[in-house]
């Protein structure tokens, strides 16, 4: 019996592959602009949520959101109506309210 346990010990050892968090040197590309846009119409309460956030890419291990300030943001719909968005706060560009239409398409 002792012997069998010895075997098992070895076998388990053998098949225990190991995962470990490690440091890796990553390349970092040039900064790129990230545009995150939310133009939602919530059916239940007929509310709109309109939010466009501009930020920059960051190195993979840096847990930050670096805002891209001073941008001019403009949304054009299929009727060629132009909606200028204003910067608010540090990170967020918001409003005006875009009237939602059925089959409304942004260009």
């Amino acid at each position: 019996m002792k012997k069998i346990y010895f075997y098992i010990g070895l076998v388990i050892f053998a098949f225990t592959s190991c995962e470990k968090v490690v440091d890796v040197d990553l390349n970092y590309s040039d900064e790129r602009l990230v545009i995150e846009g939310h133009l939602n119409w919530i059916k239940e309460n007929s509310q709109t949520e309109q939010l466009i956030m501009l930020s920059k890419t960051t190195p993979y291990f840096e847990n930050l959101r670096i805002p891209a300030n001073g941008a001019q943001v403009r949304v054009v719909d299929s009727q060629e109506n132009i909606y200028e968005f204003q910067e608010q706060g540090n990170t967020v560009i918001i409003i005006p309210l875009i009237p939602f239409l059925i089959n409304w398409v942004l260009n």
Partner: protein
Amino acid sequence: MKQILYCFTLIFFTGLVYCQKNHVLSGYISDVETNETLIGVNVIFSDLKLGTTTNEYGFYSISLPEGTHQLLVSYLGFENYFDDITLTQDLRLDLKLNPETELLDEVIVNENIEKLNLKSPQMSVNTLAVSTIKKMPAVLGEVDIIKSITLLPGVTNGGEGSSGFNVRGGAADQNLILLDEAIIFNSSHLFGFFSVFNPDAIKDIKLYKGGIPSNYGGRVSSVLNIYQKDGNSNDFRAQGGLGLISSRLLLEGPIEKEKGSFLVGGRSSYVHLFLPLIESVKDNKAYFYDLNTKLSYKLNDKNNLFLSGYFGRDVFDIASLFNNAYGNSVANFRWNHLFSNRLFSNLSLIYSNYDYELNFSFADFEWNSSIVNFNLKYDFKHYLTEKIKLEYGLNSIYYKFDPGLIEPTTENSQIQTNKLTDKYALESALYAGINYQISPKTSLQVGGRLSNFIRFGQKLNSYKNNNPLIYNPALKLYRGAEPIGQIDYARSNVLKDFTYFEPRMALAYQNKDDQSFKLSYNRMVQYLHLISNTNSPTPIDIWAPSGTFIDPQLLDQFALGYFKTLGANRYDLEFEVFYKSIQNRLDYIDGAELIANNAIEQVLLTGEAKAKGMELLLRKNEGKLTGWIAYTLSRSEQRTPGRTPIETGINNGNWYFTPYDKTHDLSITTNYVLNKKWDLSANFLFQTGQPITYPEAQFKFQNFSIPNFEQRNSSRLPNYHRLDLAAIYTPDQKGRPYTGQWVFSVFNAYNRQNAANIRFQQNIETGQNEAIRLSIFGIIPSVTYNFKF
């Protein structure tokens, strides 16, 4: 074909053949103890400066002038045989060699194994004796043929825990693996931890990396030729081994003394027997077994018959949720016939079936798939004169690819029955090659292979403009086209056929007794493509035959080599440089879904690959310390440009490293005979880390971190290195009916945590991004007991 060639050569070489009175000396050379024929035995006439070697069935033939000549027969681990041969007519001389015995007082190791052949134009070839492989330290004590060849120059492993191998920067699916002439599609057990070859049943292995002769075709990177033993036709013998993971037993013996023999070898793992004892894994099963069988029968002096079979299987069962079984089954009939003492032939009829099944109990469906092929080979070796040897033959393989039937296993399964379309193909080839010793210093090997591939009718999607892959220039993205219809072609229709001529050439110039230069060129065509996005073969990989949407891969390889023996044959030095380019190498669009894809053409792009490198091998053949140092410097790249100037292709059409590019590859293999009881060995391996695609930046979307990946394969995993040690203890065998041997080994002795993979994720708790390294084998000590009756 045969007649044509024969006439052809007669016309050209009549003068050479009949200008002097010559006689033919021919026969088989075998081991006196087992009657096992021996491959690659040197048959040398030093007074004439002529020589030949036995072929893969142990046959040799040489024409010599009339008179008395000094014969020397030498082979690894066997005593040299000397004789004076007087030739007045053709002579059949079957020889039996005595295994080398150790002298009582001291150990003399004179294994002239794997010696360098300076004269032969064949280059870029490595042979390994099974006795050498068995002395190497092995993971979990399980001797592994595929792992041992990765210690040779130009050969790297496909990643930790992987049984695939890469030759000269080629992919794992570009290796032709032959077991007794039969093609093996999957060479791994336990998802790649072990290879499927039972070392006890193997006689000889030979790896061609370049200058591949015309009798091989169908894969572009290498040929690994593995011969099974015939079985002992003198006495009944048993041998085997008890290891931690698996055990093996091999029985062999005569059916009719000196005429017929049988061999049965089995191997099975038994880890699963212990699993129920451990609570956390008690519902899991993982095991493999394989069976090698062979019957050999010598009908008469001119005819030998062989019937061999291989059957291997792997079974996984994870808590009865997921069940997987796969394996190769091969049945093989061969007939050796001597048409004359100059003309040797072998006819092979081979059936092979590689199948796998997956059963997802948790999702209530199963998936069965297979590749069945019938293979006919008729090979001739024609020993025309002492200077000219011809090889010619034909080969035809009929394939049925069954990519799978997905079936629900219960009534309330969400999965619908889905039959992926079966594919049928015929691959045929005619080949001829001549080996011609132009002068005492120069010899030439020229040949050609005419290969043809036919895809037969099946259901086939049709696409608008015949284009299954659409490019969206605004988004710079590819996506699969929607088929506009489906045509069901009858099986007798030929959907597409390909014919290629593959020239092969090799030249050797031996400018001194102990050194030579060699040069080779070969073109090869590969009609089958492995559809896989992993770097090493896995059982669920699908082989796609060339056809309407996929063209065959074409290889051109050039190699140049310098070969030298040093210190009275004690050392061999081999230095080679190579360059190869491959056309029609497939790659997959970003986000391609490969598993169970019935329209693989919608995710494929065609590109090209190239590899170049330098290999150095220094080998010590004799003495207490034997072994070799192999170093390879190489580069392997591929490129998949867009089909039109507007398209980006993959990686913007730029060259990128293949996943098997290893800049530096160093391996040191040593064996030291301490005394009669102890044999010590060590391996050291160093390989540049494998290319990988890392994130180069991230952005936040809502609260998730989204990685932005760099150009394909532009980073590398950490370098791979490890040291393995083994000690073989052979107790005093006097007065025992059997011989036993203990093999103690330590794999990865300094417990290097080599990265099999590094993945990136956002830690759920901290929200911080992190890199996680997976390493498979840490330090693994093991012990195996081998016995022989």
